[in-house]
């Protein structure tokens, strides 16, 4: 088709050349390779997100006392968002997660950095064993990790409470003031080894000559850490911190599972738990959708803000 439209087409080229055929074939080849992924991606990522946003701006009105006369839907503007933000428990849950994040993410990042530096340092014996031991919890699903720890928190079952009692310390892991930190402990336990492994991998990319040069200069352990290792693992630290911030706002499985042993955790303890309750206990999908959008927005703003902050400092 292309060849006949040109002037010399009738004389020289009647059929498309092999090169042209191959070129056309190569035009659709990438799309054929992309198709399965893209179809699924649109179906399970793009469409649900569009639906969530649409739902969050929709109002469902039921006719009659039980909705028996049918339901009508209409544009709600920001009403669902205002309703979500007017919910004191939801706001409180976001605040609770901010507090949780500031403490837990900081502790975890310090811990995994120190462990990575120690394991890669000269004084560590059997680093392979310790690395595996620290990484092991990552393979245990959050729910099962929480069940595991809940046994160590429940009075009567927990040997930790018994040991505390020997020393005259009354431990209460599930009370209103402590349960948040009991959750923080589970999250730290589960993810420290994973983050540590990422930092270890980044430490291993530092060329040997850099250490050799530092040794020639007579630099000790701390100067090497401060002026060589820490600056070079910065990208890994930033990345793991951002993912931890996003993860903190998504916290769901741990508090949801601990609910069955701790009355201090209510049905709106974390933002996600609140959205889940709104959707499935109150059947208000529209407000739940608004909550989901708000959670994603806060996570985005926080991680973006953190990146901006670290970028500015490095300049």
């Amino acid at each position, binding site marked *: 088709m292309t060849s006949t439209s040109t002037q010399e087409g009738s004389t020289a080229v009647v059929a498309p050349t092999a090169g042209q055929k191959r070129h056309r074939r190569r035009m659709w080849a990438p799309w054929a390779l992309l198709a399965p992924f893209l179809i699924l991606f649109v179906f399970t990522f793009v469409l649900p997100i569009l639906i969530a946003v649409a739902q969050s701006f929709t109002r469902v009105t039921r006719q009659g006392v039980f909705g028996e006369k049918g339901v009508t839907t209409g544009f709600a503007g920001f009403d669902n968002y205002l309703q979500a933000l007017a919910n004191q428990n939801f706001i409180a849950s976001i605040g609770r997660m901010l507090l949780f994040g500031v403490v837990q993410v900081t502790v975890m990042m310090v811990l995994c950095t120190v462990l990575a530096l120690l394991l890669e340092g000269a004084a560590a014996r059997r680093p392979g064993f310790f690395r*595996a*031991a620290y990484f092991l919890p990552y393979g245990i699903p959050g729910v099962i990790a929480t069940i595991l720890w809940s046994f160590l928190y429940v009075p009567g*079952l927990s040997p930790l409470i018994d040991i505390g009692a020997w020393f005259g310390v009354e431990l209460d892991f599930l009370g209103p003031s402590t349960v948040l930190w009991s959750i923080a402990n589970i999250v730290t336990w589960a993810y420290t080894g994973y983050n540590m492994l990422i930092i270890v991998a*980044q430490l291993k990319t530092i060329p040997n000559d850099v250490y050799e040069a530092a040794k020639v200069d007579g630099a000790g352990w701390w100067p090497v850490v401060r002026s060589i290792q820490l600056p070079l693992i910065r990208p890994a630290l930033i990345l793991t911190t951002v993912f931890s911030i996003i*993860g903190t706002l*998504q916290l769901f499985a741990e508090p949801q599972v601990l609910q069955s042993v701790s009355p201090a955790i209510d049905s709106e303890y974390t933002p996600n738990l609140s959205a889940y309750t709104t959707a499935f206990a109150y059947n208000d999908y529209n407000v739940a959708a608004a909550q989901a959008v708000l959670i994603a927005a806060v996570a985005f703003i926080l991680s973006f803000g953190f990146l901006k902050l670290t970028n500015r400092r490095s300049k």
Partner: protein
Amino acid sequence: MSAPAQQSAPTATASAPTQIRRSRRRAGGSSASRGSTILVTGILVVVAVYFLMPVYWVIVAATKTTQDLFATNGFWFSSDFALLSNVRQVLTYGDGIFVRWFLNSMFYAGVGALLATYFAAAAGYALAKYQFRGREAVFGVVLGGVLVPGTATALPLFLLFSKLGFTNSYWSVLLPSLVSPFGLFLCRIYAEATVDDALLEAARIDGASEIRIFHAVGLHVLTPALVTVFLFQLVGIWNNYFLPLVMLSDENLYPITLGLNNWLSQVDRLPEFYQLTTGGVLLSVIPLAIAMIVLQRYWRGGLTEGSVK
């Protein structure tokens, strides 16, 4: 948000193959003093105790009768060794529902991760090795997907699936598990760095079709990256809780996470469920623990998807 991900991942993955074989190098040379060795080892041991303690506890607890579980110290075995009867109870309770949950988890994670890896490889390879209109747009949109947390899409997915009548089926959990935006991201970077254009041209001159070239050349060269993508997706699906919780109401379709939580929620009424739950936790942790230790070396730097808690 995409900036650090783009910066760190290529450096880590590109150098990964060479790193593995390189012998361990120590920051301060081999001249650590005895004192510091003792101090560092002490710290590492204390931390290891912290990480291994819950696993140790559940091993001990699984050997006890329900009575001893509450009556004896949790960190030491009781005289009555009930491990075998406990395990038998876990495996037979409710017509072997635990085994069914385990197989469900293996199905969701195994099939899901395998197909997700294949799809991500094809798409990542296409983005890396072809010039076509809309390439960057596609990549940009998918990269946005990496940053959307799983729990944010679970609720809207439920709304969509319930309209289509998909909820409470194997599909409702499997379909969303087939997509790995992170896998595509990694495969693209890896394909750009390692798949040689000359090799592809040679295959074309031999008359191989584009799809065949991908299967014969692309998949082969991408194998190291595919292992990583597969493992991440496997762990991600295995650990997933929110999605099946939202989608499934039939106990027979539960993955192991949902099933064990179901047992735990009954301990208040029936204390025997403590025994079932500890036994079930032990049985489900063992294969994962072994897998983690064996597969540890495949986890490479910069591959930071799954910190969704």
